[in-house]
């Protein structure tokens, strides 16, 4: 009877989760949907407490309280710029929970002599993927937080080494299925999983982290699916599948936006060799500087302005200055939009969150595909701290390392003003022809300072 009740409440929770994801299709419904998901979670957890296997509540309460105490600051105090690290960190948490449950279940079934082949297949898979995700996510966290060097770390024969290590892990898994009671191969799977996680992320550079974080999301989901198979728990299977699908879709979207295949991100170690090639095909011509008051006048007397924010905007913490400038321009009747490239931030959709935090209404944030035709009747495109995502070489120069990457058609607009810190090349070390185009004027300086100056001058104009 209790068992039926628990299963039915899981069913309800799963339904609420799917509805919550559906409500995320629109910003207006998203928040209510997530409240529904939270209720679903509450129902599922409350019902689980009635489970007949649970006999003591002390440890469980200790764990729950500690978790809540850790979770609160992770929810309320983490700044939006640190979202990618934070997400990577909680992937590590989720995967650790799955791994520990896997180990615990193995010990339990070992003691009670209940190990079957199907059971160890699921447990081994869970622990392998879980352990891999734990260390992989911690590595990604370290790189994003800049505790670890962001540059790709490579050595000779790396891919062969990593793949063979992973193959040994899979071989151990097969061995474990044949001999379910061989504890050492179970331990070996754990250790190999942990090592593969580290080695997998080691050669991946900071710029590729969005793909990695999404991919780890997907692995964490698959580990949860394996837990569900091992424990005969359908809600874990459902949620793990949702999570896995989400991570998979996002990593595909990110790879596409960078014009790189999955395998290229994972095995390519981009950025180690690209810098040198690019320097050779450097842009010719001089950049034309512009003063802040001239730039402000041009903005103030235009009809349509598109702002192209890049990660430089977030680094300079200039979102609020950007919004003030937008408010001033709109007061003068200028139509202002933001053009958001999919990889503008450090994770999928990051730039939207940063701008929304500054109080910019989401209907002004336009995706790349929707805004690209609008550049032709735009008077001024204001590029703030973005570089590669507006580089015309991605379209024209076949030898460029970023050739083929979808970009924002900034050069179609009538004039371009670029806010840039210095004259150097961008994050990926690629020169940008846009900066030397006759349409373009450069306003050098810190993004925050420049935007403030522009705002002050627009006020006077």
């Amino acid at each position: 009877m209790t068992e039926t009740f628990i299963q039915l409440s899981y069913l309800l929770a799963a339904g609420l989760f799917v509805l919550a994801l559906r409500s995320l299709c629109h910003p207006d419904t998203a928040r209510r949907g997530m409240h529904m998901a939270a209720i679903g979670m509450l129902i599922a957890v409350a019902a689980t407490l009635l489970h007949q296997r649970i006999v003591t509540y002390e440890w469980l309460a200790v764990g729950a309280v500690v978790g809540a105490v850790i979770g609160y600051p992770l929810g309320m105090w983490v700044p939006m710029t640190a979202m990618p690290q934070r997400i990577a960190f909680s992937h590590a948490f989720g995967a650790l929970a799955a791994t520990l449950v896997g180990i615990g279940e193995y010990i339990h079934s070992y003691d009670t002599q209940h190990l079957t082949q199907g059971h160890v297949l699921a447990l081994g898979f869970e622990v392998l993927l879980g352990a891999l995700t734990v260390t992989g996510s911690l590595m990604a966290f370290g790189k994003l937080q800049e505790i670890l060097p962001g540059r790709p770390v490579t050595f000779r024969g790396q891919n062969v080494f990593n793949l063979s290590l992973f193959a040994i892990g899979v071989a151990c898994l097969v061995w474990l299925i044949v001999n379910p009671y061989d504890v050492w191969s179970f331990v070996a799977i754990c250790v190999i999983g942990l090592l593969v996680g580290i080695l997998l992320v080691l050669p991946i550079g900071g710029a590729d982290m969005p793909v990695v974080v999404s991919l780890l999301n997907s692995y964490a989901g698959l580990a949860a699916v394996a837990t569900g198979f091992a424990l005969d728990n359908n809600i874990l299977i459902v949620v793990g599948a949702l999570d896995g699908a989400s991570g998979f879709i996002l990593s595909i979207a990110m790879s596409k936006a960078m014009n790189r295949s999955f395998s290229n991100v994972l095995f390519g170690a981009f950025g180690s060799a690209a810098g040198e090639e690019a320097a050779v095909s450097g842009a010719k011509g001089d950049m034309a500087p512009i003063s802040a008051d001239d730039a402000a006048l041009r903005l103030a007397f235009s009809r349509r302005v598109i702002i192209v924010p890049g990660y430089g905007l977030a680094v300079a913490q200039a979102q609020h200055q950007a919004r003030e400038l937008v408010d001033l321009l709109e007061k003068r009747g200028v139509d202002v939009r933001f053009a958001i490239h999919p990889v503008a931030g450090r994770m999928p959709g990051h730039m939207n969150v940063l701008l929304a935090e500054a109080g910019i209404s989401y209907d002004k944030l336009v995706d790349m595909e929707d805004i690209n035709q609008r550049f032709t009747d735009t008077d001024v495109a204001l590029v703030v701290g973005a570089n590669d995502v507006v580089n015309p070489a991605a379209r024209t120069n076949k030898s460029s390392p970023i050739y083929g990457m979808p970009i924002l058609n900034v050069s179609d607009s009538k004039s371009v003003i670029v806010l840039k810190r210095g004259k150097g090349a961008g994050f990926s070390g690629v020169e940008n022809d846009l900066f030397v185009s006759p349409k373009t004027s450069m306003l050098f300086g810190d993004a925050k300072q420049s935007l403030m100056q522009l705002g002050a001058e627009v006020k006077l104009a």
Partner: protein
Amino acid sequence: MTSTAIIQLFVFLLAGFVGFQTISRIPPLLHTPLMAATNAISGISLVASLVLAGANQGFVSTVLGAVAVACAMANVVGGFLITDRMLAMFGAKAANKGERKGADRQ
């Protein structure tokens, strides 16, 4: 293969399909909240951890379970809070006020 395993494979297949269809419709605008949301929801592994921590199967299992409960709980609490915080910023036109926290007041 047992019939439970077969049913579970069906559940996995269908849930994966539903997930794929639902999530591919979510606009890039909300991709970061989506990641935070799946993170919070994946804290459902809490239900497995709770059973392990409370089943009294010996000290090691109980401690492993308690740590797992803490990890999953941190994801649930932190995940739902941060998703809500983000979605509040995308809330209706209140955004123009430039308020960070009180965006839902209007």
